[in-house]
C-alpha cells in the first residue's frame, strides 16, 4: 500500500485550493472592474470596491494568519512524535492543533462581528461572506481531520504515520490557501 491517506489528503488539498482559488479569481475580476472613485482625502483614485465606511479588523485577521503558522508547527510535531511511536506527545500536539482551529473559527466570527456588515448590504459584502464562509468550512473539514487523527492517537495508534502525515499535509495546504485569501481580501482589500 502506498499511503492512501496521504494521497487523499493531497487531492483534498488540491480541491480546496482550486475552490478558493476560483473564488479569489472572481473576486479579483470584480475588483478590477469596479469604477474609480476619489479617496476621502482627495489624494488619489481608488477602485470603488471596499466601501468607505467598512474597516477590516486587521488585528484579528493577522492573528488568524499567525495562528495558522502555529497550527502547522503543531501538526508537524505530531508527525515527529508519531514517527517515534510517542502517543502522548502526538496526542498533545493534535490536541493543540484542535485548539488552534477552534481559535481560528472564533477569530473569523469575531471579524464578522467587528465589521458589522450584513450579507445583503452590497456586492462586496455578499462576496466577502461567500468566500470567507467557504474558508471557514474548509477549516471545519480540517478540524474533522484533526479529530480523527486525535482519537486514533489517543486509542493507541500513534504509529499510524500515514494518517498523521496526511493531516499535516492538509494543515499546510489550508494555511497556504488562507494566506492567499488573507492577502487578497484582508491586505489588498
Amino acid at each position, binding site marked *: 500500500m502506498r*499511503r492512501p491517506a496521504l494521497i487523499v489528503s493531497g487531492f483534498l488539498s488540491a480541491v480546496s485550493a*482550486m475552490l478558493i482559488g476560483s473564488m479569489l479569481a472572481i473576486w479579483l475580476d470584480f475588483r478590477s472592474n469596479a469604477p474609480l472613485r476619489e479617496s476621502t482625502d482627495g489624494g488619489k483614485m481608488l477602485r470603488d470596491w471596499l466601501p468607505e465606511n467598512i474597516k477590516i479588523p486587521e488585528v484579528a485577521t493577522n492573528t488568524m494568519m499567525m495562528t495558522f503558522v502555529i497550527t502547522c508547527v503543531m501538526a508537524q510535531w505530531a508527525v515527529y512524535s508519531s514517527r517515534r511511536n510517542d502517543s502522548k506527545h502526538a496526542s498533545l500536539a493534535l490536541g493543540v492543533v484542535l485548539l488552534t482551529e477552534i481559535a481560528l473559527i472564533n477569530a473569523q466570527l469575531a471579524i464578522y462581528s467587528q465589521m458589522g456588515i450584513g450579507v445583503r448590504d452590497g456586492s462586496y459584502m*455578499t462576496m466577502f461572506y461567500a468566500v470567507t464562509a467557504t474558508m471557514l468550512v474548509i477549516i471545519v473539514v480540517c478540524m474533522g481531520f484533526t479529530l480523527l487523527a486525535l482519537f486514533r492517537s489517543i486509542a493507541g495508534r500513534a504509529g499510524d504515520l500515514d494518517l498523521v502525515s496526511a493531516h499535516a499535509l492538509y494543515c499546510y495546504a489550508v494555511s497556504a490557501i488562507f494566506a492567499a485569501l488573507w492577502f487578497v481580501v484582508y491586505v489588498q482589500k
Partner: protein
Amino acid sequence: MTAIDSSHSATSSSGSIATRSTLLGTIAAYLTASDHKRIGRLLISVSAIFAIATAIEGAILGIERISPSSSIVDADIIVQLFSALRFDLIFSVAAPMMLGLAVAVVPMQVGARALAFARSAMFGFYLWLFGVILVGSSYLNNGGPGGGNAEMVDLFLIGLGLVIAGLLLISTSVATTVLASRRAGMTLIETPIFSWSALVASVSMLLTLPVVAGAIIYVAVDHAYERATFGATEGVNAWIGWAFTTPQIFIVAIPTLGVLAQIVATMTRGKQPLRAGLLIGVGLMSTAVIGAVTQSSQTVNFSGSANDVLKSLIPYLFFNHLPILGVFIVLGLSLLALKNERAKLNAAFVPAFLGVGMVLTGMIGGSVFRITNFKLANTVFEEAVLVYVCYGVVLSGIGAVAYFGPRIWGREIPSGPVLGLGLLGFLATVLASLPYFIAGFADQPASVANNFDYSGPIWLWNSLVGAGHALMALVVLLFFAIAAKSFRSGTVSSATSADLFESVNG
C-alpha cells in the same frame, strides 16, 4: 485481489415471505455496498436510465422545433428542457457512466484488494443521485438557469453542488485506487491503459469541478439574498455556463480513449507498439483542464491584423486543439496495433471505436465553433457538439460494458446485438447531431423552439435530430436490457480477469 463476480439469480424455495426477504436483502445489500463491482453497476445502471430520459428530452425538443410557428409543449417547459438537456448529457449520463466503469474495472486491473475508500465512493453515488433528483425537481418547478421561480433556482444550484460533491468523492476513490492500491511491482507506466485514463479523468475532474463549485457558491449566496451582483436568475448561465460546453466536456470523455486502447491491446494479445504514446495521448486530452479553469472560451478571429490573429491563435490552438491531438495519437496507435496478424476482432471494439470517433467529431466541431468568423455563437451548432461528445461517451460505454462485463461478471453478452446496437447507436448519434452542424451554419438559434426562420429545410434538420435522439433512447434501452439478462443468466464466459490486462512487457 478482487475476483470475478459469479452472478446467481435470486431463488425462493417457499412462499412470498422468502421472496420478499431476499428482495429486501438485495436492496439492503445495494444500499450499503462497499464492493466496487456493485457500486460500479449502480452508477452505470442509473446513468443508463438517465440516458434514456435525456434522449427522450432531446427527441421532444427536436420535434418541437420541426414547426417553429406552432408549439406542442408550453413555452416555460421548453426553456427548462433546453437547460435540462445540457445538464443531463454531462452530469447525469456521461460523467457517472465513465466513473461507474472506472469504479467497476480499475481495482481488478491494478490488482487491488478493493476500491480505495469504497464507502466514500458509495456515499458519493448517493450524493450524486440526490443532487440529480433535486435538479430534476427544480426543472419541473420552473427552476434551472433562467427559471422563473427564484426558490427553485436556488434548489437547482444546491442540487448541482451536491452532484459535483458526489462526482468529486467518486473521482477521489478511483484516483487513490490507481495511485495507492496497485499490486506490488506495478509501476504507473505499467498500469493498464484504461486505469491510466481513469486516473487522468479523475484528476482532471478533481481540478475543474471545484472551480464550478466556487462559482456556484457566489451565485447561490447572491441569489439567495436577492442581490443582482451576478445577474440574478439570468446570470446563472453566464457564470457556470462554461461547465456545460467545450473544453470542459472533453474531460468526461477521456476514459473513452482508455476503453478503445484497452480493447485493442487485449484483442491483439501482443505488445502494444509505442505504448508510452498511448499514455501521452490520453494525457494530452486532459489539457482541456487548463482551458476549462480559465472559465472563458478561447476564440480566434482571422479577420484582424496579423498580430491580433497570432495573439488569439496561440491560446485557441493550445486549448482547443491539443486535446484533439491526444485523441488522434490514441486512435493512430490503436489502429497500428490492429496490424498485428494475431488480432482477433471483438464485437465490443465496434461501439468503442465509433464512440471515440463521435467524441473526436464533437471536439473538431467545438474547435470550429470557436472560430468567430463563422458566427456560430448562439446557434444550435453548440448543442450538436455537446450531443456528439456525450453520445460518443454512451457508445463507448456500451463497448466497455460489452467488453469488461464478461470479464467481471463471468457471463457473455452475445456479439450480434453488441455489433448491431453499436452501429445503430452510431447512426443515432450522427442523426442527433450532424443536422445541427448544418443548421448552425444556417443560423438556427440555440435554445429557441418557436418563432425563428432561416432559408433551408427547417423541418428536415429538426425531425432528423428528433429521430436520432429517439433512436438513441431505444439503443440504450435494448443494450442494457440485453446486458442485464446476459449477466444474470447468459452463457458462462471463457474470458478471465487476466484478460483485463494488456501485455506490457511482450
